């Protein structure tokens, strides 16, 4: 099952993706975060905005991903985790995080990112570190939005980040409940 997802992701990356400049993307994202920081002046508000933006991206991105890969319904939450890591991240960021730290009830897991392309060249100023800025918080929103489109309500948050001095970046995904045939509530 795992091998299958990995090959799906790699094949989709090779064949069904248009490539664009990585530097352009990284610089755009960096300017976005800096501008948000200047506008809001409060790093926790910046985190929330990044999450909201990510949510809006995620609800659309999941359809794009489904169109490019012909994946069938996931058998369970652990399969969902594998798809996020091996297909989703691979397709859009060309990195494959590791799925670990499953909780006892199998409703929570962690994604360990060794290498996040958004972080290239970035150094957080001391104030941002002190105020708790999660630079790539948009990724948490993307995962949350995508899973909500797949009828799962989740809470996704960063717990560790290399930009803040930790050794790896870790995102924690927690399944709150399955949504059955409900229209997901919009965020604001």
């Amino acid at each position, binding site marked *: 099952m795992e091998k299958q997802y990995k090959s799906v992701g790699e094949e989709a990356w090779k064949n069904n993706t248009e490539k664009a400049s990585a530097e352009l993307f990284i610089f755009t*994202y*960096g300017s976005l975060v800096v501008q948000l920081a200047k506008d809001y002046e409060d790093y926790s508000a910046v985190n929330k905005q990044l999450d909201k933006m990510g949510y809006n991206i995620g609800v659309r991105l999941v359809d794009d991903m489904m169109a490019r890969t012909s994946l069938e319904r996931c058998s369970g939450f652990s399969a969902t985790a594998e798809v996020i890591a091996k297909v989703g991240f691979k397709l859009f960021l060309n990195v494959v995080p590791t799925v670990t730290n499953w909780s006892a009830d199998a409703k929570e897991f962690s994604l360990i990112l060794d290498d996040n392309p958004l972080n290239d060249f970035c150094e957080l100023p001391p104030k941002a570190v002190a105020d708790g800025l999660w630079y790539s918080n948009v990724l948490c929103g993307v995962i949350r939005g995508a899973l909500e489109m797949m009828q799962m309500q989740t809470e996704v948050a960063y717990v560790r980040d290399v930009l803040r001095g930790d050794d790896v970046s870790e995102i924690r995904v927690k399944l709150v409940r399955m949504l059955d045939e409900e229209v997901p509530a919009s965020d604001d």
Partner: protein
Amino acid sequence: MKLRCIAILNRQDIPVYMRSFDDAPSEESTVKYQYLAHTSVDVIEERMANAKSSSDLYLGLLQTVGELAIYGYVLNTGARILLVISVPESVVRSAAIREIFQQIHAGYIALICNPFNEGGKLVSSKFDLIINELGRVHAA
């Protein structure tokens, strides 16, 4: 070859970064290096005015002052990097100096690409690490 000082000036010849590797840094030595940086700027301007082609960033030996030799390197954006070394007993290969400049240049690019970098001020711990490493290797 003993590395003594690395200085980076911007296009308007204002020093944006200065790091000396003396054993006993003193007020006098910082002033001395700033003075050397300013005098070297004139030499840079002269070299660039009658440069045959602007494709080579490395300017070579600019001047020698007493026991110190100063090398220059210009970036395409106009910023200048100056390297002050104490005159060695043996001949210094320009390839070695070029390599040091290229490492500084690479570090400078990474610094500039940081989205949180404020224009004009070069404050970065990663860049300091790179410069420290160069100091450790060449000024020991």
